[in-house]
């Protein structure tokens, strides 16, 4: 463990501050959020770090002071005592010093605001005022802590930075080949932090020169971040810059083999290169593993995210990725139930159903979560009917494979005027919904059956409730039309999702709300407010009732349709959450983010159980394989990555698209992965082969690093062009016909 000893606290505190900023800006929920947010893995480390810190240097002393101050303001008397005892600090010294500190800090903060020469305190976050506004947290204390813990306070000689960096560069170039790739990982985070330090300490020209000199060395996939950085030459601008905040609030994680790490350490100690060493200690988290150093390609395939790779522990948690047992297969109960319904013709239909499902679900999947791990809604009669329909269709399903590719139907949105932002199909492919930039949601019937709404309450009173066709009678024939428009949002609609029972539709929008629409009345039922920033995506659980939403506030929220407040909040992403997806067993959700990571969250306890890094651009699409074992993710870099959820490893990289992959879908049996992109193509990939080609031995290897085969071209089964129509949604019908949708974009 090379992480600095006092790191956890720092991370902890800053994390807190950050969430508060968000929530405070959000206006409400501040306290609620504080309580609900599951602590991200970083924060979960014990906060006894400082106590262990041996060196009684003045720096550390100050840190302790600040922490004490903080504890005292919050009336943590016990903790104060313990800490004081352990650190051996006298009461009065702590008192006086602390006050001095606080005074200087606050003064600095004010001066910073007034004169734009920021003190260390105000620079730390933009949240100084924000925190003060959150009374629950006793925000006044925060600056004290921030003063001491603020990063970039060290004042190295700006002229030497270039020397430091090139010294390290020379060193890395001189080491053995096998270590070079690993140690090269250091360049980017060091570069960024050194640059920021220069900027922070007002060495603008040096910073610029430093950037000019070394920005070219960085990996190309950091271009976007570098562009942001290069624009940042003033200390004032560091305030409120999100990217910057990310660098500062999270430790950049590097995985380095023990050998390489020793080399580095020795080098830095020999050279007395404290500057670099400090940065490594303060801002990097080096995850050391025993074993062979990784190769360049191995490293490249995993890096690229905003905060480096995932720590290995982050992906250690057990994930129950198996599928739930299908309720109908609870044989005796089920039979009774359905016979009780007096539906003629049912027993006949059940036979094939059982056969088709039997092979899959009879034996309990050892990796499946307990059936009631997450409370799921009871099946209604209509749901059972639908299941039966599903079974019937499934028997007619075409088995796909490299030899038998699916037919593709394209749903073209005409006259959308560049306004189509999201599409969803119902599972039975009977309805299609589109979200538009003009704030509307439109629903079309894909079948000849027109969309009808339920009669008004007055009219409903008149109908004979005992009649057999009462369900037919409640529908208002006059309202029949091919499409319905749902008005309610006040900003572009970025995501739509049908409930599995086709009774509801979810939509999320720039206006910060998620809306639930009834497809019986075609009216809005609920507006879920919680995200106070644009909501980029929302998704119903495959079992209905729950849904997930994620947006610009970097927090994914789990909702239930009958609760107006979220049940869970998943915080941890370092940038916008751009897409969300439910695991087929509804126990997990995956979120893709602009921080170029995919995270998997456990709904039960809100923990982040997987962090997948390797994408080089914001992730815009996610898809679970039908068996729940694998996850596919597509990003703006045009690549699709495949992940093994159980082992938490990348198992495939599908290269071929030339633009953002906006849609991914596995075929019903998982043999084919379809990807749709902005580059006006649909591509089909052989997912079976992709999963099989991976040596399972790799999974058990201690390092957990696998070598990816370069086989994109072999896996690509077909590329299908559209007519100037970006593909923004894909859907496999129950019979494995592929439906694609997009707006004609002349």
């Amino acid at each position, binding site marked *: 463990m090379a992480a600095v000893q006092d790191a956890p606290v720092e991370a902890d505190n800053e994390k807190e501050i950050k969430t508060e900023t968000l929530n405070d800006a959000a206006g409400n929920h501040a306290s609620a959020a504080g309580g609900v947010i599951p602590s991200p893995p970083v924060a979960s480390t014990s906060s006894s770090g400082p106590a262990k810190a041996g060196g009684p240097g003045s720096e550390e002393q100050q840190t302790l002071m600040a922490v004490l101050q903080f504890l005292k303001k919050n009336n943590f008397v016990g903790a104060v005592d313990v800490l004081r005892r352990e650190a051996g600090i006298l009461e009065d010294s702590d008192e006086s010093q602390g006050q001095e500190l606080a005074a200087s800090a606050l003064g600095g903060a004010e001066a910073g605001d007034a004169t734009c020469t920021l003190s260390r305190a105000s620079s730390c976050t933009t949240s100084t005022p924000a925190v003060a506004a959150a009374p629950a947290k006793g925000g006044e204390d925060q600056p004290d802590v921030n003063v001491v813990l603020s990063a970039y306070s060290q004042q190295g000689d700006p002229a030497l930075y270039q020397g430091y960096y090139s010294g390290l560069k020379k060193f890395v170039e001189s080491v053995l080949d096998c270590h070079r790739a690993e140690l090269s990982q250091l360049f980017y985070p060091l570069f960024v932090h050194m640059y920021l330090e220069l900027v922070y300490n007002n060495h603008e020209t040096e910073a610029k020169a430093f950037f000019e000199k070394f920005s070219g060395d960085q990996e190309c996939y950091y271009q976007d971040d570098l562009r942001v950085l290069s624009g940042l030459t003033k200390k004032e601008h560091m305030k409120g810059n999100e990217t910057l905040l990310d660098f500062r609030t999270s430790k950049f994680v590097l995985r380095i083999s023990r050998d390489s790490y020793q080399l580095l350490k020795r080098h830095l100690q020999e050279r007395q290169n404290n500057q670099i060493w400090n940065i490594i200690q303060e801002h990097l988290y080096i995850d050391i593993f025993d074993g062979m150093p990784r190769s360049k390609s191995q490293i490249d395939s995993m890096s690229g995210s905003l905060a480096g790779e995932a720590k290995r522990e982050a992906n250690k948690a057990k994930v129950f990725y198996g599928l739930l047992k299908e309720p109908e297969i609870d044989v005796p109960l089920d039979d009774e139930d359905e016979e009780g319904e007096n539906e003629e013709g049912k027993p006949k239909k059940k036979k094939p159903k059982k056969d088709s499902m039997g092979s899959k679900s009879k034996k309990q999947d050892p990796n499946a979560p307990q059936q009631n791990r997450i409370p799921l809604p009871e099946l209604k009669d209509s749901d059972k009917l639908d299941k039966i329909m599903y079974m019937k269709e499934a028997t007619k399903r075409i088995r796909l494979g490299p030899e038998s*590719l699916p037919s593709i139907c394209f749903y073209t949105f005409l006259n*959308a005027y560049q*306004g189509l932002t999201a599409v969803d199909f119902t599972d039975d492919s009977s309805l299609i919904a589109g979200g538009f930039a003009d704030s509307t949601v439109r629903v079309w019937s894909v079948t000849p059956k027109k969309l009808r709404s339920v009669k008004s309450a007055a009219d409903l009173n008149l109908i004979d409730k005992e009649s057999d066709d009462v369900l037919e009678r409640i529908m208002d024939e006059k309202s029949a039309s091919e499409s319905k428009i749902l008005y309610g949002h006040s900003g572009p609609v*970025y995501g739509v999702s049908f409930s599995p029972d086709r009774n509801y539709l979810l939509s999320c929008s720039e206006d910060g709300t998620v809306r639930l629409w009834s497809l019986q009345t075609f009216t809005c039922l609920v507006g879920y407010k919680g995200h106070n920033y644009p909501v980029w995506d929302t998704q119903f659980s495959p079992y209905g009732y729950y849904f997930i939403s994620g947006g610009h506030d970097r927090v994914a929220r789990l909702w239930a349709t009958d609760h107006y407040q979220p049940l869970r909040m998943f915080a941890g992403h370092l940038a916008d959450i751009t897409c969300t997806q439910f695991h087929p067993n509804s126990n997990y959700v995956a979120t893709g983010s602009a921080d170029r990571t995919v995270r998997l969250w456990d709904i039960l306890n809100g923990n982040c159980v997987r962090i997948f890094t390797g994408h080089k651009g914001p992730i815009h699409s996610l898809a679970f394989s039908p068996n729940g074992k694998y996850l596919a993710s597509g990003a703006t870099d045009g690549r699709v990555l495949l992940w093994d959820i159980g082992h938490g490893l990348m198992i495939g990289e599908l290269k071929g698209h030339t633009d953002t992959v906006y849609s991914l879908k596995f075929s019903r049996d998982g043999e084919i992965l379809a990807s749709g992109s*902005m580059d006006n193509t649909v591509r089909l990939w052989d997912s079976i082969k992709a999963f099989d080609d991976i040596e399972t031995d790799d999974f058990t290897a201690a390092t957990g690093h696998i070598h990816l085969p370069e086989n994109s071209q072999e896996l690509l089964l077909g590329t*299908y*062009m559209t007519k100037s129509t970006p593909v923004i949604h894909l859907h496999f019908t129950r019979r494995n016909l592929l439906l694609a949708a997009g707006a004609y974009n002349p």
Partner: protein
Amino acid sequence: LHSGGAAAMADREERRFAEVPRESIRLMAESAGVELSDDVAALLTEDVCYRLREATQNSSQFMRHAKRRKLTVEDFNRALRWSNVEAVCGYGAQDTLPFRPIKEGDLFFVEDREVNLVELALATNIPKGCAETMVRVQVSYLDGKGNLEPQGTVPSAVQTLSDDLLKYYQQITRSILGEDPHLMKVALLDLQSNSKIAALLPYFVYVISGVKSVSHDLEQLNRLLHMVKSLVQNPYLYLGSYVRSLVSSVMYCILEPLAASINPLNDHWTLRDYAALLLSHIFWTHGDLVSGLYHQILLSLQKVLSDPVRPLCSHYGAVVGLHALGWKAVERVLYPHLPAYWANLQAVLDDYSVSNAQVKADGHKVYGAILVAVERLLKMKALSLSVNAEGGIGGLPRPGGIMGCRESSPGLSPPPEPLSEPGLGIASHLHAGGAGCPWEDWTPVPLPAMYCELYSFFGDSLAVRFSTGPSLGNSPPAPLAQPPTTRKELPGGTANLDTARKMPQLTANLNISPRQDGSPHGELTAPSMVSGRYVQAFAACQRPSGLSRDVFPKARFNPLPAGPPIFSFVIGGRQMGRRCQGRRFQTTFTPSQPLSAVSSRTYAHKLPVIGRVGKPVRRWTCSQYSLHLPL
């Protein structure tokens, strides 16, 4: 501030980002009433640049989530709104707004066209704004197999269209390119008015681009041009960037030495004239869709004109093209080139050898085309000057009576008047300095000098052409009308000239009588090819002049003088002070023309009086500042 600018410029290597100059910041501050010192301005500038970049970066997220490639003003505004900054209002168009500079003032602005609401409200053909959003499904690929072959050829590409559209496309192309002229007419009419063919536009454009492969077939070329015309006139079609493609097809017909022109019997001249008309029409109605189009057209015309290797028919095309684009184009391009070009033309025309006969005939065509072009140039320039001198005629009723087109030129219509109104033309910034100075590095030649120079080339033929003032019968006492006493003889001369001159196949432009359009402010006469259904959605400054049409042209040519026309056929020009002799045309004229009592010299001597710029305004309007002089 334009969001696109920042993003586009970010690509540049040497400067990583768009930077707002310090002066701009200072100007903006000044306009808000704040004086900035140097260092404050510098600091502010840097901050402004940074904030702009930040907002641009944020806005790109909205673009990505809207699944678009194009960053819109809306995206930018959203980013601003979410960072608690006031949004920039008024530029929410989906299409790119032309962002242009005025060189003189160091001013950059987004072109904002005026929309004449009255006209829009009273328009009878209201374009269907937005069609309903709809979903249509088709089986694209069956069993994973489909049109995997490259879709370059039109037919296979068309097959993915819906059945109806496909059928329509086949029918239309077949009937337009087919034999039956009646069918063609019907098809063209439909193409002109069908509101549902937007999806086919690319295919039609593609078909039209086939001009290059049928350059041997005048008939086909003609039909394709008609197709262009129909597409251009269709009010429901948004041509967008296809304008460029259409223009290049039309330019091909104007400029290229078509294979059809090898045979002198082929009347490719008419085709070129028609194409030139079409070009000007496209330009005036759709020129704003593609920025810089005007400039490009002018450049390519200029290139052809200045290339002596090109055949004369190409030069002819360039001249009629310039003419069709308006007198400013002529002034800007043709006029400066004339001295150089003249020598070549002279050589051709002076070669009396038999082998040269054909070329010489072509030369005459070019000569005639140039004559007509410069003649209108002089006229329009004079008019614009006179109007300027009067302090603008904004308050006066426009003299509709003298804004005529000649209806007697069958099938051919006068090209639209040049517009000097900024706001319509794509290159309006070029004209921004006022009516007189269109180009940055180009100083206008004063009218008298211009006339002298031109006179040196054309001699009396120029003078004679200028005598076609409004005739006796022209009743409206418009302010710009000429005193009736001044047009005794010369109109007759014109008429005679028109009939007598043996310029073979005087085509469109030659037949157009110079118009005394009193206004430089874009009295854009609807070209007759538009057949009255001229889309004026945005052309607020356009005004159809229906009244003038029936009154004026007939009146102008009816009253022949009682006596024999006083007309000199000696219209050879002198190039005063130049080496070459004037061009003598007398041989081509019928000797039966009675000689006039007054020699052409009489006119020639008096002509320079047009230079009297200092004369009182009133006088000028009375004399219409015309070259027509009382004898």
